[in-house]
């Protein structure tokens, strides 16, 4: 069906566009909330006004960013239902739960306290306000935890099974759903990536001020806090990224195939493709610069584990499709006769490969008549887009190490109290601001494009997850989002730049005098 494919493709495009857009604002919120809390902690413990000025100034930029994070987050909650209603019905019993808990436990906390954080400076004691700021940071990070638990289910479905009577996945164990290794590793990797983003954002703007000799005291302190926070965070991102690669490598061999450009299964230890030009049409790398024997220890942490290439992944997928067909056929019988014992037994025997049969169904609507050509096409589908994922992955890793080096140098200079004199460092600082954002976006691509052709890995194929809309509806909504989101980003960047140029409100010489001296708790109001 031609129309169906167009609708699915447009739904995917819309989801990717709106999720990537939303993900421009989320990492900064995750990290900046903790940096604000750190600045305010210093203010409350030492009583030095400059740290309150810092918290207020960066808090303003936080608020501009936060508004768009909230607005675009609403879209995501709608989109599962509007554009992916088959998916929502199929897994809502499992996937909806963490989303609801996110609202209840995290988003309420973050949103209620963010109002008090921004408006309540003069309404409560310092200690209480500090507590409020920590609640905002805790709320936003808990929010990420629950979202990634939901996402973890899509990547590696645990804690649920398919129920042939209700025709959907149902929760079997909430604890299995929460303690999903993929979700755990990804939560830490993603939230710490947010800390790196905030660190580089604050360091970049502070560097820009120092270069112009503006707001020196505030900029120096902000820069130091940011780079120190950032160094530790970027070490965390890289090590958790390695852990995530290790988990995904075993749970989703097809993603690993795409990340590393592995068309053929090699004898271990396999070589590592540093640079390659993978060709989808020829199913091989047109060019590859390799380091021998490196890949196997890198992703399996052993020397002798076989890493399946595309050929092996496709071969296994075909076997599972064939085995899943009886389960898919039994479903139709069970839909009319839920008490049919034979059909139920047939379903149970082949249940674990049902998803693969559904994958084949795209090419063979009548599964009893599936041809070898149908199997070939469906098996080819199990390998996600190799060139895009291969390069996205490399950009992410490169960006990660570049940021670590930059933050490390920044921290070294700052601790020696030399950062404000190193003009080359201050000059590159603002140019580094886009880097973490790019890394976050390509990271999303690796994780989610690499999950294709599944919405729930091995369980529900993407082609049968979208709503049954007309192409016209999908074009209408896509055009609407492009118009609204383009207007939003222009306004946001304009305001952000305006407030960065304006800078913090200086309190005049009196306030600056205390700075750098010993803690003078009595001088604050």
């Amino acid at each position: 069906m031609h129309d169906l494919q167009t609708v699915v493709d447009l739904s995917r495009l819309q989801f990717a566009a709106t999720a990537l857009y939303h993900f421009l604002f989320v990492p900064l919120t995750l990290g900046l909330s903790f940096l604000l809390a750190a600045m305010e902690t210093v203010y409350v413990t030492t009583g030095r006004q400059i740290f309150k000025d810092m918290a207020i100034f960066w808090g303003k930029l936080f608020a501009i960013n936060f508004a768009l994070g909230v607005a675009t987050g609403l879209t995501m909650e709608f989109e599962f239902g509007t554009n992916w209603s088959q998916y929502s019905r199929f897994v809502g019993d499992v996937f909806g739960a963490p989303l609801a808990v996110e609202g209840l436990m995290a988003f309420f906390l973050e949103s209620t306290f963010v109002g008090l954080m921004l408006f309540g400076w003069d309404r409560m004691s310092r200690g209480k306000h500090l507590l409020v700021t920590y609640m905002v940071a805790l709320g936003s990070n808990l929010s990420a935890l629950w979202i990634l638990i939901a996402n973890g289910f899509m990547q590696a479905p645990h804690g649920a099974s398919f129920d042939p009577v209700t025709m959907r996945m149902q929760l079997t164990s909430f604890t299995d759903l929460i303690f999903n290794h993929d979700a755990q590793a990804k939560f830490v990797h993603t939230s710490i990536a947010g800390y790196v983003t905030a660190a580089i954002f604050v360091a970049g703007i502070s560097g820009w001020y120092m270069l112009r000799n503006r707001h020196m005291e505030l900029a120096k302190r902000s820069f130091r806090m940011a780079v120190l926070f950032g160094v530790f965070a970027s070490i965390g991102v890289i090590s958790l990224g390695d852990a995530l690669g290790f988990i995904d490598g075993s749970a989703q061999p097809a993603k690993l195939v795409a990340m590393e450009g592995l068309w053929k299964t090699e004898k271990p230890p396999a070589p590592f493709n540093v640079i390659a030009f993978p060709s989808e049409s020829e199913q091989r790398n047109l060019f590859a610069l390799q380091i021998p024997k490196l890949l196997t220890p890198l992703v399996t942490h052993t020397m002798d584990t076989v890493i399946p290439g595309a050929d092996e992944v496709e071969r296994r997928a075909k076997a599972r499709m064939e085995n899943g067909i009886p389960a898919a056929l039994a479903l139709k019988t069970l839909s009319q006769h839920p008490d049919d014992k034979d059909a139920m037994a047939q379903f149970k025997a082949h249940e674990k490969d049902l998803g693969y049969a559904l994958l084949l169904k795209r090419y063979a609507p009548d599964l009893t008549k599936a041809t070898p050509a149908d199997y070939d096409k469906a098996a080819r589908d199990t390998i996600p887009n190799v060139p895009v994922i291969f390069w996205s992955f490399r950009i992410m890793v490169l960006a990660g190490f570049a940021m670590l080096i930059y933050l490390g140098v920044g921290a070294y200079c700052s601790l020696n109290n030399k950062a404000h004199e190193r003009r080359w460092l201050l000059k590159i600082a603002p140019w580094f601001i886009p880097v973490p954002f790019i890394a976050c976006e390509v990271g999303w691509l690796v994780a989610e494009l690499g999950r294709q052709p599944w919405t729930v890995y091995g369980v529900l194929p993407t082609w049968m997850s979208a709503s049954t809309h007309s192409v016209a509806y999908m074009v209408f909504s896509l055009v609407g989002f492009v118009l609204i989101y383009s207007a939003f980003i222009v306004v946001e960047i304009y305001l952000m730049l305006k407030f960065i140029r304006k800078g913090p409100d200086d309190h005049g010489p009196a306030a600056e005098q205390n700075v750098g001296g010993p803690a003078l708790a009595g001088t604050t109001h």
Partner: protein
Amino acid sequence: MELYAILKIVWWLLLGVLLVGLAVMVGMDMGVGAALRYFGRTDSERRAVLNMIGPHWDGNQVWFILGGGAVFAAWPTIYATAFSGLYVVMLLLLWSMIIRPLGFEYRSKLPSRTWRNVWDWGLFISGALPMVIFGAAMGNMLKGVPFHFTWDMTSYYTGSFIYLFNPFSILCGLTALALALYQGSTMVMNRGEGAVWERARNLATWSGLTALVLFTIGGFWVARISGYQITAGDIPGGPAMPLHKTVEMVQGAWLHNFSAHPVLWLVPALTYVAILIGIWALRRGLSHFAWWLGALGWIGTIGTVGAAMFPFMMPSSSNPSQSLTVWDASSSQTTLIWMLGWTIVFVPIVITYTSWAFWVMRGKVTPAHVENDDHAY
């Protein structure tokens, strides 16, 4: 009664609680946004009004987000069918709603008059339109929506989107808007002074009366449209599968629950009593009391819809037997139990800190206040 059936009823009641929370808290902010240009004639008056709900709109909005999340988790078939079936309407709701955070946050960041006027109108749209759509969605649930399922539960919506804006649903939408204006106006009275307070009192009076008139017309209208009735199948404790029952459309069926249990008439009566006493109270300046009565008015209104429809949740007008009900559209027992646990633990905590937030920010907000406050919107 079986545990699973009890859980379904509990979650149906909790859905009601969430809808009331959404209507009261988000409705209040939307009422303020929709009438911002009426409450405040000068820019500083408008800023004062915005700052009355400034610290709270974000937290309040979570009632809406949680409502969506809870429907997803506890009523996934309804979430999927309603959000995709009402596609264009849902997008209009979403697009108008996402203007709001920016309207609050960005409006007063620049001094330009044009800039502020544009955001004022943005706040008008993002206040009025979502409330009309919210009410119209309820109206469409009462009328039934043209959708059906295939054997594997793939859902198809077969109506046009214009159909969703039928006169009855528009009436329900305007009722919701009137109640939201009442709630917003009493909030502005709570925290405003002088001319702003006077205007808020006028709007609260008129919107309260309008809501009652529209609610009354709606009541007579409901008696004349076709309601739905289960004639076979649909076991309360049975699996969540909506394809194995028979449903008939009967004119006036939405009054059957009331005639079977006359005590239910107290629910619509609550709306009248609450709003009438509310208007009396606010004319005497007791705006806090009037605000709480507005919340009771919402309980009566949403409760009336629920009492009329039970056990129906989303009837299908094109294939009534595939209507979604409390018995066949919920999550599994495991999910309902877990979600109930999370709700019992966290809702009291949320209510506690929300109350604390309102307490901290209590008191009047005046134009002079806003001019001197660096953090104000």
